[in-house]
């Protein structure tokens, strides 16, 4: 691994983010990354966070038109409440803040505690859970669906609404709408290695793959013999479409898990477009790349978001962050 010692991986990365992106204020000690111009007058503050290891999520999405702050935890470990409370204080311009929380037990509990802390300080806080992963059944027998690729859509679209000056209820409503309109499915061709463990988090023999993986190196729901890009696209898209029955064009995210070459990911994108065309689902916009990753896991995920005209407009709105940038 390209690290010093496991203990300093997150702090080292934050120093590197600070060096690379002067437009961000990085509090390395307290682990908060904030737009340099925060708090932005008359704007709802958007805060997200979660375990590290999913980069560019979330710090790479801080900037005009998207997040105001990101709170990175240890690798695959949700951040602590103090981080989000500090971020809330830093970005609140009096219009309140929205917490965008991926639905994991740890994230939910830590953000909830942060909400109490921030509200004690007089900041108005709303919270939206992202839970788009169809590989997990949302039932009494699970912690509920995981938050994965849709986080990007929620952050971008709610971010655009906030940038336009929408009030907290509206920004929250957009975030909720986007989450409800989004579903994902992921596939691993290899496990990832966390710095703390130093070796793959599970054994996946060459020639096999895991279907229905999350973004924390956990194995999926099912192991199978290796499939072609075409077969994987069929499987992943159909898994998503079984849950989401789009009645309008979709935003498409074809996401790499970290170690899949962009060459392969583009090839996979072609197959995803093919199967969507076969299923008569028009693609309004698409994004291909490593956006919501799982360290050095090889694999990919597909996220669809049903988008009405308003969401498409918000998608096209300018965004200026390290990892997503257009119109500025």
């Amino acid at each position, binding site marked *: 691994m390209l690290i010093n010692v*496991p203990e300093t991986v997150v702090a080292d990365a934050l120093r590197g983010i600070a060096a690379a992106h002067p437009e961000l204020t990085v509090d390395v000690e307290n682990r908060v990354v904030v737009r340099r111009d925060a708090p932005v007058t008359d704007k709802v503050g958007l805060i997200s966070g979660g*375990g590290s290891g999913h980069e560019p999520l979330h710090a790479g999405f801080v900037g005009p038109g998207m997040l105001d702050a990101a709170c990175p*935890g*240890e*690798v*695959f*470990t*949700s*951040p*602590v*409440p*103090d981080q989000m409370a500090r971020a809330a204080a830093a970005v609140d311009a009096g219009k309140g803040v929205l917490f965008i929380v991926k639905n*994991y*037990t*740890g994230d939910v*509990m*830590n953000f909830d*505690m942060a909400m109490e802390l921030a509200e004690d300080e007089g900041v108005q806080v709303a919270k939206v859970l992202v839970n788009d992963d169809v*590989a*997990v*059944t949302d039932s*009494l*027998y*699970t*912690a509920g669906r*995981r938050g994965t690729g849709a986080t990007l859509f929620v952050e971008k679209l709610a971010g655009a609404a906030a940038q336009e000056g929408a009030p907290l209820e509206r920004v929250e409503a957009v975030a909720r709408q986007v989450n409800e309109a989004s579903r994902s499915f992921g596939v691993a061709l290899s496990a990832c290695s*966390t710095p*703390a*463990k130093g070796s793959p*988090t*599970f054994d996946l023999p060459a020639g096999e793959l895991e279907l229905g993986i*999350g973004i*924390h*190196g*956990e*194995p999926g*729901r099912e192991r199978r013999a290796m499939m072609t890009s075409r077969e994987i696209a069929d499987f992943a898209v159909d898994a998503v479409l079984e849950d989401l029955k789009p009645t309008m064009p979709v935003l498409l995210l074809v996401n790499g898990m970290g170690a899949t070459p962009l060459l392969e990911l583009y090839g996979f994108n072609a197959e995803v477009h093919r199967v969507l065309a076969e299923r008569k689902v028009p693609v309004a916009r698409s994004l291909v790349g490593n956006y919501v990753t799982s360290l050095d896991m090889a694999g990919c995920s597909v996220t669809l978001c049903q988008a009405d005209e308003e969401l498409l407009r918000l998608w096209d709105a300018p965004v200026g962050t390290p990892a997503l940038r257009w119109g500025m």
Partner: protein
Amino acid sequence: MGKERDVRDAEFIRRWMLAMAEAVESEAKHLTDLDSAIGDADHGANLQRGFTAVAEALRAELPATPGAVLVLAGRQLISKVGGASGPLYGSLLRATGKALGDAAEADDAQLREALQAGVDAVVKLGGAQPGDKTMLDTLVPALAALADGYPAARAAAEKGAKDTIPLQARKGRASYLGERSIGHEDPGAASSALLITALAEVAADV
């Protein structure tokens, strides 16, 4: 050596916390490996970070009462650990501490009652029940056995942890695996056994 009396002071709780910090230190890799099988391979590192902070805080300053020691330890866990175990263990200790109030000492019955309040806080925060393959599968039987003394609690904790192996997880990250979570010991149940063991050892050592 040997138990002289069953009254516990702040120093006793500190010794418990330091013993837990040591146990976590030496078992960190094992806990991470357990979490690697059905979770995200961070449980050992999480608790190590947390209990190292607890130990440092308690070496720097010893609050006057057992309750205050536990509240301080719980706060440290909440603000240093993150993940699921940070808030859960943090709440466990904080609620236990709060239940002890500001008495300078507690007898074992009081401590047991306070621990029950701690476990209740875990249930309330995490919404899990025994049988869901979580730390509660260690804590609940251990507390029930505590009425029969620390060694019994320790034995129940260790059994509780192992008994999670055949269970299918219904809470936390391991629940994503569905049936594939069966056949592995829950990392939080294993670390809870360390916590109860540390308590039993410190109690035996008074």
